[in-house]
């Protein structure tokens, strides 16, 4: 067991070319809020966890039970896998984590990897219904985005876990997309998570989750997510998140 990041899965789990939803913390905690809500409302089962010496030495307690903050869930049919975390990803762990996850996605023969993320916008306060944009890592992924009528980013930089996730999946010939919902840069954004979930549902008809309760409980979620948001914001400069606002030099 000398891997830098170890993905530990329960024995006997069957995967049937699953769609993977990745909701690791990033701007607006869009992925974390969306992934947690999906897991709770769809009653997905915890099937594993991720551990690494590079992660902060933190465990969480839920209902008296000790849990790893980096967890993996699945539906009962093995068609959907969800990866989420309740603590920020340390910048030094991004490369080994995304490499290990992409290796595992390849091993379970994932059909499509969807990273649920936020797209920070300065005028979020004036936006009632956040829009969702997509980034695809290959022709098949771009085809999926077009098919589902998700507008995709055509130029720019992307940074953080989802950027490296797309790249690591590309190297393993796995189709991956990132769905980016317009969000507050440094505040938890349940409204953006609602938009993101509505987009994710287009890719998986089995996801019948109703977002009503997420909107109703938005303020409660914002209160509970404050500390994770602060951790995530602190790691943003090292993640080069600022570069996402930059214009790339001439390309191709």
């Amino acid at each position, binding site marked *: 067991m000398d891997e830098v990041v170890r993905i530990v899965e329960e024995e006997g789990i069957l995967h049937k070319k699953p769609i993977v939803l990745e909701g690791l913390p990033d701007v607006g905690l869009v992925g974390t809020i969306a992934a947690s809500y999906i897991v709770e409302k769809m009653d997905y089962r915890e099937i594993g966890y991720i551990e690494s010496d590079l992660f*902060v030495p*933190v465990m969480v307690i839920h209902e008296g039970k000790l849990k790893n903050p980096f967890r993996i869930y699945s539906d009962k049919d093995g068609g959907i896998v969800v990866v989420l975390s309740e603590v*920020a990803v*340390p910048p030094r762990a991004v490369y080994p984590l995304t490499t290990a996850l992409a290796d595992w996605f390849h091993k379970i023969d994932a059909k499509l990897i969807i990273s649920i993320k936020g797209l920070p916008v300065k005028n979020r*306060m*004036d936006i009632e219904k956040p829009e969702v944009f997509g980034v695809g890592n290959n022709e098949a992924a771009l085809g999926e985005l077009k098919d589902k009528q998700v507008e995709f980013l055509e130029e720019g930089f992307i940074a953080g876990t989802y950027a490296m996730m797309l790249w690591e999946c590309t190297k393993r010939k796995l189709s991956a997309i990132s769905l980016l919902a317009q969000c*507050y*840069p*440094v*505040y*938890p954004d349940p409204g953006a998570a609602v938009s993101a979930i509505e987009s994710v549902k287009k890719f998986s008809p089995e996801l019948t989750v109703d977002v009503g309760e997420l909107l109703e409980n*938005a*303020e*409660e979620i*914002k*209160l509970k997510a*404050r*500390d994770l*948001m*602060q*951790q995530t914001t*602190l*790691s943003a400069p090292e993640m080069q998140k600022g570069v996402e606002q930059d214009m790339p030099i001439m390309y191709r």
Partner: protein
Amino acid sequence: MEIERRIFKATWEHNGNLEPLYEVEDKGDEILVTFDLPRVRKENVKINTTGDTLEVIAKMSDAVCWERWGIVQKKITFQAFRKQIKLPEPIEPEKAQALFKNGILRITLPKVRRKVLITID
């Protein structure tokens, strides 16, 4: 490491106040400060500013009670957000403006600045 250190610094106080998430941005001629204030109504927000500090006290419409939570606390209730910020530059308090929308408070604070036109020889 910054993240690890942050985990041990609580964003709440025993006096029933929560520290809100906030952001300070230097916009050149002005300083823009925003606060995330869930469960707060506009009429319950108090903003005080001097030339170099900004204080926000925002009472929640319903107190937040977290039970069965934490290692040091079994139960804790919060009624308000409170934060005082030392501003990076002096501002003109009389010209400050504030907007509250969807739980976000945005305060615009013009800097004290005396502009002098430089002519080119």
